């Protein structure tokens, strides 16, 4: 299936969360939505609601305070979903690697499907990354979800996961 056909079949909606980066990639993600690059050509809309999202764009090196929120958001996005780490600091920590309040990248906390390098990532790179993410999304179904050990340990059964979510919401 070509990219164009794929994008016609699916209209992926984007959820974007900044986990403590420098805003550089965030403004580039916003720029992707504006007339010059106009990612709405692929049917993509940026929505703040995790329950409606398919593609989860994460920027930033994951500070300790953002970590719980990131896991919470990740669990709220319905399956199948793809996670795109945008920018060097989301991939491997970037300049913030090994600072005391930083987790060194998104993949230490939640599973990541596509890594977009660049500091700050260009709109072209983000489009490339999202297109690649859509390829992965088309292969994913609800059955073949691979949960990472980190999340499995924390939430062994689905019921537990729901309970933890409710507790998080109360906080």
């Amino acid at each position, binding site marked *: 299936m070509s990219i164009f056909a794929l994008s016609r079949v699916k209209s992926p909606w984007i959820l974007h969360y900044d986990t*403590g980066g420098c*805003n550089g*990639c*965030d403004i580039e993600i916003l720029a992707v939505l504006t007339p010059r690059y106009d990612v709405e050509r692929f049917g993509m809309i940026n929505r*703040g609601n995790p329950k409606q999202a398919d593609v989860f764009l994460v920027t930033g090196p994951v500070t300790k305070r953002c970590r719980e929120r990131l896991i919470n958001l990740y669990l709220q996005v319905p399956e199948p979903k793809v996670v795109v780490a945008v920018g060097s600091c989301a991939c491997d920590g970037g300049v913030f690697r090994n*600072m005391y309040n930083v987790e060194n990248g998104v993949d230490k906390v939640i599973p990541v499907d596509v890594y977009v390098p660049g*500091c700050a990532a*260009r709109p072209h790179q983000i489009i490339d990354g999202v297109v690649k993410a859509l390829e992965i999304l088309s292969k994913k179904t609800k059955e073949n979800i691979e949960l990472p050990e980190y999340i499995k340990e924390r939430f062994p059964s689905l019921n537990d996961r729901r309970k933890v979510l409710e507790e998080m919401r109360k906080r």
Partner: protein
Amino acid sequence: MASESKNKTREIQIKEKVYTTIPFGSQHVALPEPIKFIFDTENEIVKEIKFDIAYVHRGIEKALTTMFDFRKAPYVVGRVCGICSAAHTIPCAVVMERAIGIDREIPDRAKAIRMIALEINRLQSHFLINGHLAEVCGYENVFMHIWRDREMIMDLADMLFGNRVQYDVVCVGGVNRDIPKDKERVLLDKLNEIEKSVEFMEKIFTKDRTLVSRLKGLGVVSKEMALEYGIVGPMARASGVKTDCRVEDDWGLYKDLGFEMVTMEEGDSLARCLVRVRECYESIRIIREAIKSTEEGEISIKVTANPKYEAVCRNEAPRGELFYYVKGTGGIMPDRVRIRTPTLANIPILPEVMKDVSYNDIPPLLMSFDPCIACTGR
């Protein structure tokens, strides 16, 4: 005594009944960055505000004294904030030069290129926040227009410095990339186009009925209040406070080029917005003058010593005064680096301004203050 305590508990009970708590953030459509406000509202009128600004705390101040030597410092502090990256790298480089004792020897061409980087940075930041403000007001059309024109400035930065967001052009001892003659010509041509789009922006923000009626009289900051809370940047200038670090500190050539400060008296959201629009003209003028005033030549000097003195530098970032302090000990890493970012000075006034404002006016009011959380958290 007993009746007093009874009264108090009754008051609390009434409070609990009437006040509705609305969390805003840390993940929200109107916010590209993580910041959290908790509003206690009474019939949609905000009564109490609590804020949490530390989602982005990474520990850069500590890392600058333990992980990176002073030559790498400008590249690291550029990542404090991506929107005002040049505004961070310049004072960092200047303060290191002052701590070494070579700040008088920086060539004029390097100073001019630093100024061009800073002003291009300011232009794109002002375009960004004004577009975002229009979007938050529900005027998506203007948002798209302004962001389309902003791409011209991003292209300029891309052409001159090699990256759209992180310029990385400033290093300790000067700059590491010159602007050749043919690029200067393209830059001057593009500036005319940008000036046209600034005119368009000014027309919209002064004449459009929807935007003006939405923003006028919203979140008024009087001059006394601005002085008392020590707010900085375009927000202070919109209240009539004459403060601009470009003329107060002498790292650049602003005094030689004749700098005019833009101030307004109203102090409401519209004034803050218009100050930013009018500053764009001044920025464009400064870029032109900076190109004219210097010839191609030496752009950097060799740095051989390590920082050994104490020094401060104040710089006007797009959001206001940016303060850097460095204490060197003669080693390769400084002893203490303090970064006081503009938003840190503008945050204390927010609960005061947001009190007794209707909840649906909060997003435009917040955006007119232009908070940059990546700066605040560091």
